[in-house]
């Protein structure tokens, strides 16, 4: 992709007019980072021009939409948009959309290709009735239409539909895949990213490529070089070490210091209570606790999370959680 580098890459404002998640969305299956087990099989479908109905299951930002669009580009080339209908089930859910939009698209005449592709994003948002309607539609139009369904959990899709699809599981992207993409974009855009900056982006993204690229672009806007500090600031993320240090003090019984650290995160750094919970949840296994204490901490974090959503005071809830950690050492 480096050949796409704009000639004036050294002018920082250059690529900034585009949204990078769109600009750097891979156009070919081969360009997709990670998913070494899935991509070759999808390429095979394209190569043999023999596409079954597909179901992509996995969390956000793992490349489901990208894979669907890449398949479509490879099959239809330039005019892929004409042969690719993208519907978001959570926007247009209900039985009517299944019946009308899909049918109209599937029925519309088209030239040159044996079939068109309907990509139904967030298919698990469809009601059961709509899924039932969909299943027969899939079969009815299978002579000229292929469906690609995306969902978070395949188990939310009714069995008759699963039975009609080849199912692919998109797992969270590995850090290496995200790092490779981040470095590639940085090079193309001609922005300077420090190594700890890359690590910070990877950490903040937590397996979500979309988040990583957004973080990189936002951080790039902030200044000449993208370093750890900018990334953590832009993503409202604390350094994992800070979080761990805060908990460490609490475990050691120095509640005042732990509370001061929490105060800093919430006020100075602008983290929301939920952000702190999320990070603690990720860092829990790195703490100096035995595993039963860790499990208790996780459950307690859940309680904090739940109570905050219910309207409790996030600072007080987190403080209570920190205070309780001292008990782990005593017992």
């Amino acid at each position, binding site marked *: 992709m480096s050949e796409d580098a704009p000639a004036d890459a050294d002018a920082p404002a250059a690529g900034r007019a585009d949204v990078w998640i769109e600009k750097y969305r891979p156009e070919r299956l081969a360009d997709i980072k990670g998913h070494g087990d899935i991509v070759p099989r999808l390429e095979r479908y394209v190569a043999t021009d023999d596409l079954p109905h597909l179901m992509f299951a996995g969390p956000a930002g793992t490349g489901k939409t990208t894979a669907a669009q890449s398949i479509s580009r490879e099959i239809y080339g330039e005019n892929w948009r004409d042969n690719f209908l993208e519907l978001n089930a959570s926007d247009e859910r209900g039985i009517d959309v299944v019946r009308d939009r899909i049918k109209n698209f599937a029925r519309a005449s088209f030239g040159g290709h044996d079939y068109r592709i309907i990509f139904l994003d967030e298919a698990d948002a469809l009601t059961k009735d709509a899924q039932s309607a969909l299943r027969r539609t899939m079969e*009815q139009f299978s002579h000229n239409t292929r469906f690609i369904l995306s969902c978070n959990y395949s188990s939310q899709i009714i069995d008759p539909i699963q039975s009609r699809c080849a199912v692919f599981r998109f797992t969270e992207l590995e850090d290496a895949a995200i790092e490779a993409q981040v470095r590639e974009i940085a090079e193309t855009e001609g922005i300077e990213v420090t190594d700890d900056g890359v690590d910070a982006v990877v950490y903040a993204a937590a397996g979500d490529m979309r988040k990583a690229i957004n973080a990189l672009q936002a951080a790039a806007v902030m200044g000449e070089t993208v370093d750890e500090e900018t990334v953590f600031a832009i993503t409202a993320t604390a350094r994992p070490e800070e979080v761990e240090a805060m908990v460490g003090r609490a475990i050691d019984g120095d509640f005042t210091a732990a509370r001061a650290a929490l105060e800093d995160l919430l006020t100075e750094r602008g983290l929301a209570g939920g952000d702190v919970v999320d990070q603690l949840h990720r860092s829990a296994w790195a703490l100096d606790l035995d595993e039963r204490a860790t499990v208790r901490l996780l459950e307690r974090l859940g309680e904090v999370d739940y109570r905050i*959503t219910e309207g409790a005071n996030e600072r007080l809830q987190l403080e209570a959680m920190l205070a309780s950690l001292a008990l782990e050492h005593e017992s």
Partner: protein
Amino acid sequence: MADWTETYRPTTLSAVRGNDKARDALRNWAERWEDHRKAAIVHGSPGVGKTSAAHALAADMGWPVMELNASDDRQADVIKRVAGEASKTGTLTAGGSGRRLVILDEADNFHGNADYGGAREVTRVVKEATQPVVLVANEFYDMSNTLRNACETIEFRDVSKRSIVPVLRDICRREGVEYDEAALEAIADSTSGDLRSAVNDLQAVAEETDRLTVEDVVTGERDRTEGIFEYLDTLLKNASAEEALKASYDVDETPDELLNWVEDNVPKEYAGGELADAYEFLSQADRWLGRVRATQEYTYWRYASDNLTAGVAASRREPKGGWTRYGPPSYWRKLGQTRSTRDRRDSIARRVADAEGTSLATARRELLPYLSAMTHHCRNRDLTVRMAAAYGLDASELSFITGSGADTNKVGSIVEDAADLVAEQAVEKGGNAFFDAGDPSPDDTGDGSETAESDETAAESGDGQVTLGATLEDAAGADGEDTVTDSEGDGSANQTDDPGSASAHDEDDGQSGLSDFF
């Protein structure tokens, strides 16, 4: 290249595999149609060949097909126009018999707001049809009682591995795909009775390699039981808490499903204090699932996962060894088996509710248990006869309530006496057979249209609940309780038994299926 499930769809009934009995019954139904003029309900799990068989039948009989399915608008007037017309008037163009076959696909799915009135219309069309009608359905008991009674029933069972493998082999030969026999067997194994999935998997794998081997046969979701068994082994035997959590990311089960797996299998490894600890974590996980349901806040799923993976692993006092036979949650087995039982319960409750003027829930919760107790094992015969007459119960329904075997002479004679009683009352136009101050409208009194209507209304209000949310809740909540109280032996007794006669195995079980639900 086409979808193999379409390419290799059987074009004649004799090519329909794995359901010989159902296939013959279908042909027989069609050949005798001029005599009995009833519609047929073809029901069974997804992918076993119901729709294929219906089309193949039409081809064999030389009948043109008129097809309606849930992805067509199913408002009453559409159904009346299309199916009503098609079934009343023969085709002009088709020569020969002038017959045509009306296929109503997804006949169990005529409910929901979009299809308001559809179900009633189907029942009417089916009754008045002058052309053969085949209704295709997954869930037999999702259809109204009236509709079911008006039709001949043909059940398609899950296709056995023995029948799937030859189909795959045949396709391989025709596609020129080389294969190892073991690979085909692995595919057949992993699709558990779903022939269509098997063909899909075959196509997916065949495209990747020149020669199919067992190693190739690992297709996405459908390998899941393998993954889950390995996971349980790790979780319960020796994984650290952190390992247990991380490994669970690779298991494609939602926390609710995983909870069922773990809960069911943990006592096979843990005992005493560690089991109690593990259950404390499972109970916390369950509370998180409840919070997810209540708030729709799916981020809480992670706390459920923490508890049920890391928590359970951390509860283990010492590593376990050896080989353990893990099984799928008995509640699933139960669910599969009791699906028809639950539907039967609801179908009875609906009639009781109609007759007594209560809600379905009240009938289920407050009337059926008493009826069941009063008529236990038909000991009070006279009362049982009157009950059967009042609610129009057939032998299997009677068996369900009383716990006596459906095929026994006892039950048979009660059903006969009840029928006599109903006839007698119809003549007298007299009061009520059961509960002296009640509504005398048993189903069998011959007033077809009225009964049908009230039955349908009840069916629709019931159907309103069959949304995704309710189903989840139902599966995870109410039915979860069943698991706890049901002994395993009971659940595994009749796994392959015909759901239509599922209650038959309750013959000696004084509790009958019913008591599981209270």
